[in-house]
């Protein structure tokens, strides 16, 4: 049985500590009773959580963000999976160029993309629409989905797909029943990453969001432009809480392990 040794576990704990430290600090700050950023040294207070209720724009923006993230990451996955399979499976003319193209949104500063999209959308009449927002997000989150699916599908055992074909599965069925389940961990983590990135994007979205549909990060960003107060921490804490809750539900309903690890594996 392969188990992690003590050194590995120490490393693991330090690693998680590093990842968690700033998050925990922010959560702690959310409970301060002061009007400014400080650790809650003199008693916990929920005033900043209550303050969220006084800012209905935050809640509206949160919903918009969720919708935007879900729609755009799903679209991105739909586009990325076939492209990843093409790149992982085939040697063809232009393969590297296509790969570089799909990855290029990662490499352009988002401010530049923001202004480019704003100019372009204004030109073609998509300015300020939800569709424009979705499309621009699909572009910037696609590389994440693509790379993860690519990592999962390179070197996958082709014999298994051959077996499916020999049993009469069409390419589509073979994909749906065999390939997809086997690369599902990659697809799932790709979707999660894509969603998170869409959900967290500010620099570009500031330019293309319209007053009617603004995302939560844009709201927060504009808010802290002017004054940073523990409200921001409170919103973050709520987000963290919601995420954990969502993951727990997902775990109950479908199984996180199964999603991220794959079925029938150990």
């Amino acid at each position, binding site marked *: 049985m392969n188990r992690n040794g003590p050194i590995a576990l120490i490393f693991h704990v330090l690693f998680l500590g590093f990842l968690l430290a700033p998050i925990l600090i922010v959560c702690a700050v959310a409970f301060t009773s002061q009007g400014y950023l400080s650790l809650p040294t003199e008693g916990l207070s929920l005033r900043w959580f209550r303050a969220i209720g006084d800012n209905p724009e935050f809640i509206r923006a949160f919903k918009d963000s969720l919708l935007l993230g879900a729609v755009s990451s799903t679209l991105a996955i739909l586009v990325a999976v076939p492209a990843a399979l093409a790149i992982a499976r085939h040697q063809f003319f232009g393969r590297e160029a296509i790969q570089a193209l799909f990855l290029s949104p990662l490499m352009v500063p988002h401010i530049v993309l923001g202004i480019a999209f704003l100019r372009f959308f204004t030109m073609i009449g998509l300015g300020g629409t939800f569709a424009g927002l979705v499309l621009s997000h699909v572009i910037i989150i696609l590389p994440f989905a693509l790379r993860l699916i690519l990592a999962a599908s390179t070197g996958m055992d082709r*014999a*298994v797909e051959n*077996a499916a*074909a*020999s*049993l009469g*599965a069409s*390419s589509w069925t073979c994909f749906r029943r065999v390939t997809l*389940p086997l690369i599902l961990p990659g697809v799932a983590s790709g979707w999660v990453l894509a969603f998170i990135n869409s959900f967290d994007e500010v620099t570009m979205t500031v330019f293309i969001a319209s007053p009617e549909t603004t995302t939560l990060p844009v709201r927060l960003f504009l808010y802290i432009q002017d004054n940073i107060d523990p409200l921001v921490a409170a919103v973050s804490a709520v987000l963290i809480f919601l995420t954990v809750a969502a993951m727990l539900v997902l775990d109950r309903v479908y199984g996180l392990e199964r999603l991220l690890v794959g079925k*029938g594996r150990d």
Partner: protein
Amino acid sequence: MAYLVLDQLTKRFGNWTAVDNVSLTVEKGELISLLGPSGCGKTTTLQMIAGFLDADGGRVMLDGQDLLAKKPNERGLGIVFQSYALFPHMTAAENVAFGLEMRKIARADRDRMVADALKLVGLEQYGDRHPRRMSGGQQQRVALARALVIKPSLLLLDEPLSNLDAKMREEMQIELRRIQRTVGTTMILVTHDQSEAMALSDRVVVMNKGRIQQVATPQEAYDHPANAFVANFLGRTNLLPGMVGSGAAGTVITVADSVWPVAQPMAAGPGALAVRPEKIGFVDAGGPGGGLSGTVLARVFQGTQWLFEIETAAGRLMVIRQHDGSPLPAERERVMVGWRAEDMAVMPADPEATSLSREAA
């Protein structure tokens, strides 16, 4: 017309020719075995028939249709892969059911057929297990059940029984034979087990280095090998060097101190005498037949039979005797061996012959 025709099928990997101009016709309902040393191109040939490798040349016709033009999933073949290629994310039962689902068999029928197939391979209690949690032999049987359950008209079997014990293997062989007879399935079997090939096949195809060496019924190939490679590959053969000359009774070959009549006319000179180990018996000194004297170097128990290695003046001989309780010589005992003249073959000396199969590996 022949059911399956391979016509000059060729496959190259880089500048390595794995399959070289293979032509073969298979009748409907026939069971053909591909035999040959490891790496001779058996799997590659099957993969081309199945459509997973593109042929570099040649044609495959099934029932008069060009198979290579069809997509793999439209070829309707059943395949058992050498590496099993089970779906790791599905249970044994789901693996078996897959082909039926593709054929849109109704749920109830499907369940029944899957249960039957699992029962056939002795895994009725393992339907819910994932491949990773099964033993090697169990996985192999799932692979077999998966291919059999769809009742394909052409079944390609790549070492389908290599991880099964004798008992189970025999049962599976009988099962395959039954399916072939009752359903009329045409089968191409790759196996390294010669007795399996001999027992099951209508004809065997012996390959070496990507080329076909002989196509014949098992007994024919065994008793009348087309060339030294086949002789050597199918079962063991003793090759003894000798001198061909003329004796009183016509042409004879002299091996050490024994003299054997040669049926066919041959030029005098160095020659070789081939005789299979199971055709050699222990004879009484001075009995009929030439008879070579020697010493038992080693005797090895092989279940139904004993294998003897005997040092003679003409070189080492292998002798096989059935384990039927009759008295057999012990190690280091001096013995006399002999065989019937019709069981031996005489050929001109061929320095390469004995090393052929080795080199082919």
